[in-house]
């Protein structure tokens, strides 16, 4: 159908133009963790308000011409040249700023992650109404008046597992007159790690029959004493080893069986016949499950083994391995 063809053709042109534009911007403002804004990186153009203002000036000029009124001419010209001077001031509001990537929090799909950047000024000039936004993120409006730096947190929903790229950060400002908009698009080389979506499976297949080597037998019951450790704030008074305290051994807490460790191996091969993403999702679910149960767990993926462990850092390692499985490196 010719109609359809035409549409695809225009879409193709648009796509190509967008690609060319992106590569041009990439060459002009290459990705970097910190970008200082200078002539090469700041764009400036009249804002919509500026165009409205120009229209108003045209009306004023018409009045001046029709009434042959010199002071009206003068005022119209004064405002027109204010617009010209405004170019420099609007430009100066972004010039010399440094935007630094701070961090991006890892997150599960469907949740919002937080990207943090820092805006610094060089010199003592006040910068106002700096508007920051990634294409999909919340927006933020900051000033740099008394302090030299300001941190900005922007939130946005993430996509699928792997590295999530927020795109180019838009920093724009219309200060001081609102008639002009100066802006920049910067790639801060900042990515958020997206974990697999946790997907429950009824039970851990193969855990009983195909028990991985080295797994500890679970200790039943929570009444069996198995050792002491140093008192920590929050331990129950009933569990304090009072006799030892009396003997001058310091404050110690008696530990019971429920906290005894048991190692589980979460294995890539536990889910035969499933797709990569589904496997990772199940593994992710069980990793979180064992973490919640306070049971030690390890991870075996093709080409990667994480020894059993427990705790926040271990969990992050496991989740990171799951998030980045098959993802070669940060996208460029």
């Amino acid at each position, binding site marked *: 159908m010719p109609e359809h063809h035409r549409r695809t053709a225009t879409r193709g042109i648009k796509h190509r133009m967008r690609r060319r534009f992106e590569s041009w911007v990439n060459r002009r403002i290459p990705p970097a963790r910190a970008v200082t804004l200078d002539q090469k990186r700041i764009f400036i153009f009249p804002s919509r308000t500026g165009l409205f203002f120009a229209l108003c000036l045209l009306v004023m000029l018409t009045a001046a011409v*029709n009434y042959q009124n010199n002071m009206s001419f003068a005022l119209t010209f004064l405002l027109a040249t204010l617009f*010209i*001077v405004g170019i420099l001031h609007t430009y100066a509001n972004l010039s010399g700023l440094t935007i630094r990537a701070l961090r991006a929090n890892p997150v599960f799909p469907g949740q919002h992650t937080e990207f943090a950047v820092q805006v610094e000024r060089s010199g003592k000039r006040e910068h106002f109404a700096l508007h920051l936004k990634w294409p999909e993120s919340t927006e933020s409006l900051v000033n740099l008046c008394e302090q030299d730096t300001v941190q900005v947190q922007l939130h946005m929903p993430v996509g699928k597992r792997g590295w999530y790229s927020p795109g180019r950060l838009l920093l724009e400002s219309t200060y001081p007159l609102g008639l002009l908009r100066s802006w920049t698009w910067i790639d801060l080389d900042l990515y958020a790690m997206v974990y697999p979506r946790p997907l429950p499976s009824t039970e851990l297949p193969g855990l009983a029959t195909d028990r991985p080597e080295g797994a500890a037998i679970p200790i039943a019951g929570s009444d069996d004493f198995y050792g002491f450790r140093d008192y920590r704030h929050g331990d129950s008074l009933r569990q304090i080893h009072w006799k030892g305290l009396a003997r001058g051994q310091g404050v110690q807490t008696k530990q019971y069986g429920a906290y005894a460790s048991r190692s589980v191996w979460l294995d890539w091969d536990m889910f035969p016949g499933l797709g990569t993403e589904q496997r990772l999702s199940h593994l992710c679910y069980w990793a979180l499950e064992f973490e919640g149960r306070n049971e030690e767990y390890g991870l075996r993926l093709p080409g990667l083994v994480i020894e059993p462990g427990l705790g926040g850092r271990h969990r992050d390692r496991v989740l990171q391995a799951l998030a980045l499985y098959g993802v070669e490196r940060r996208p460029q």
Partner: protein
Amino acid sequence: MKPDQQIPRNALAWIILSLFTLVAPHVERIPFWVLAVYVFAAAWRIMVFRGRWSFPGRWVKAGLIISSFAGIYFSYGSIIGLEPTIALLLTAFALKLIELAQRKDGYVLLFLGYFICITEFLFSQDLPIVLYSLLNVTLVTTALVAMHRPGEHQFNRKTIRLAAVMLLQALPLMLVLFFLFPRIGPLWSVPIKSHTAKTGVSDFMRPGDISRLGKSDEVAFRVQFEGDIPNPADLYWRGLVMSRLEEGAWRSLRYFDVPAAERRPRPVQTSGAALDYQVIIAPTQQHWLYSLRYATPASPGIMTSPDYVLFTPAEIEDERLYRVRSWPEAQLELTLSDYRRGVELQLPPTENPATTAFARELYEQANNPRAFVDAVLARFTQEAFSYTLNPPLLPEDNPLDAFMFQTRTGFCEHYAAAFVVMMRAAGVPARVVAGYQGGEVNPLNRTVIVHQFDAHAWAEVWLDGEGWVRIDPTASVSPDRIEWGLERALEKEGSFLSDSPLSLMRYRGVAWLNILRLRYDALTYRWQSWVTGFNRDRQFQLLNDVFDGISARKFVLVLIGTWLLVLLPIAFSLLRRRDKHPLPAQDKYYLQFCQRMAALGFVRAPGETADAFCARICRALPGMATDVREITTLYCGVAYAAQARPGDEATQQLKRAVARFRPAKVIGFDRQRA
């Protein structure tokens, strides 16, 4: 609402302030209730800001708009015309404040504010108004800047400073544009000032009309002669020639009253020396221009009437500058056409019988026109005629009979009218001329200032072989009026500007006040001549003088060149990198101290602490130990104290201690002791 769409509290305050300063100069020509709308709108918006009231609903807004339209209609009787339109604009400006919720509303409001500045210029372009408008523009710009400073809720001097700085930077660019921008004629006709009173001499003169002008000290026009200023007694500024007497009033011939063949002025043989001068006339809302006879226009767009008066087709609505060349000795209309003669002899047949009879009697005695003129003038001199600004009211019927034989007191128009009636009664063609006589010479810029109280009426008589001859009967009654002006003529009566006790003209005796007034007048003249009177001719002349001819290429080069000259330094000062972290004050002072020590050979080693350096100096030079210890203690106190701030007391102490510290002197002392 998006965060960048909110209007900070500061911006709201600036907006409300500029709203009131913008409406202030319009107060004299808007109905009082419009001001009430301003107060009401401001109060409502402040209540909205405080969270007590809410923004108006759609119906309330519609009601406000309809009622303001109705109000304007009832106040002016129409909504068409310049004044009603501006009043409507001003009302809309106030109402917009009530619904000012987002930044985009703010833009509409503030751009409207700029436009309101322009509407003020349509009524006056005087220097005080222009300066005041500049303040208004600064306030509106400040409000615009304040709208873009989110989260600023305290008054901040820097906001208005930035606005002022930007306007100052724009000013030179504006001047270039002002003088270079091509002045084109009006694109279409525009509503005119329908409600402004016509000022100055009118084309309709009844006894008492000119004496009313005699009470006003406003400036009618200012004149600058190219050569010497003629004697003020000879300055008869002709404005109107009045040839018709109808129902006791004199008026000029209308264009269509005159047959087509008589509509062009008869050619005049010029003779003697010419006077070149430039006149800047205040708006009169009338057509005629004032000049010395015989006047030929030297500016375009001016025409000459058959009675040799200059006029413009359009009413004079703004200050207008025109140039004239006059030939005072030229003789006007040596031969009189039959039509002219008929017009200039016309008299209502039955009016003023006593006066006309008396004139005929006098003419028979004199027997020739010239002698008759002298006889009438002698009459005015010899009889008990007196000159007054407050003449008694004359009866409706035969007023001149009452004037000539009973009251015998009058202002110039009484004498001129009586004189012309007597001439015509005796068969001598004559007419009344209205205009101004004399003027005040401003010694500071050699201009002649003609005030409204210089308004005058005199007569012209046609004599065979001489043409139209000027006769001023007032000169016979009150020679002082012509020689010295109205103030001197009314000295005894004490009526000069008696209704305006604050008029500066009354205090011409106070030297410093008079100098101040003349200085201001000279400034006004310069302003009107160069700025408000700048038009296509002056532009052409200026560009020709400065750039030696104009071409499109030169125009663009000059524009770009001058703009770059201004913009580049601004760009440089804005964009240059400053020191990232300027040295704290205390470090600066301590380094000064170190420099002074280094001059004596005590260089602080890298890594040497202030205390160690101090100890080293004290060991070597015990004479200055006290000072050095004091400086070191102060410095360490400021530099390492967490709560110290630059500029506080301790830093000031350090500054003073370092300033006091003169190691060279102390060393000298040490050596002497040694």
